């Protein structure tokens, strides 16, 4: 079965704390991996993506993610969060199905207190 598991549904941090959001996927083939973010009142935006090459990818706003193939994981990290990072974060993958079916996790709501 194709699925994405995001381990934390709600995370509350203080500003300047470090962030790590877990993501594991289940898929038998080659994947392209994504983290999307949805800020309050806004639409889904791409935060970062992994297609191939260096498994450590950097995205916008200081976020990075590491693809560990042996663990089927693609965890999102940021060394120091800001209040403006308050949002919902979705991990997703695109398999080699021949069409553009993104499989999303259930999302993690991050609240950063000032």
């Amino acid at each position, binding site marked *: 079965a194709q699925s994405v598991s995001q381990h934390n549904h709600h995370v509350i941090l203080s500003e300047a704390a470090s962030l790590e959001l877990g993501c594991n996927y289940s898929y038998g083939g080659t994947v392209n991996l994504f983290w999307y973010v949805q800020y309050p009142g806004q*639409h889904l935006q791409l935060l970062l993506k992994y297609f191939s090459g260096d498994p450590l990818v950097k995205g916008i706003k200081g976020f990075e993610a590491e693809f560990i193939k042996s663990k089927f994981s693609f965890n999102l990290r940021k060394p120091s969060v800001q209040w403006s990072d308050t949002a919902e974060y979705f991990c997703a993958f695109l398999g080699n199905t*021949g069409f553009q079916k993104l499989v999303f*996790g259930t999302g993690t709501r991050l609240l950063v207190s000032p």
Partner: protein
Amino acid sequence: DAGVTQSPTHLIKTRGQHVTLRCSPISGHKSVSWYQQVLGQGPQFIFQYYEKEERGRGNFPDRFSARQFPNYSSELNVNALLLGDSALYLCASSLTSGSYEQFFGPGTRLTVL
């Protein structure tokens, strides 16, 4: 440049009715995909259309249908609405069918009473 646009932004229907949702992709994008996001869940893939043809379909009943027009805009139709169809319906566009990156619109919030 305008992003992906969707209309209407909100819609209230009653059970058994039919609904049509509309999406205009980013200029130059030829592929449109539809997703359903139920409250508390991640988006679920419904359809992908490219060059007016269905390229992929998710695990949704036949009550859900879509089409793409020559200008690459798209409509999602849902017949015989059920309470469980209440969700945010997202449209995403990409340059081609093989493009990896999809750009999402703001969605249409459908409430079925």
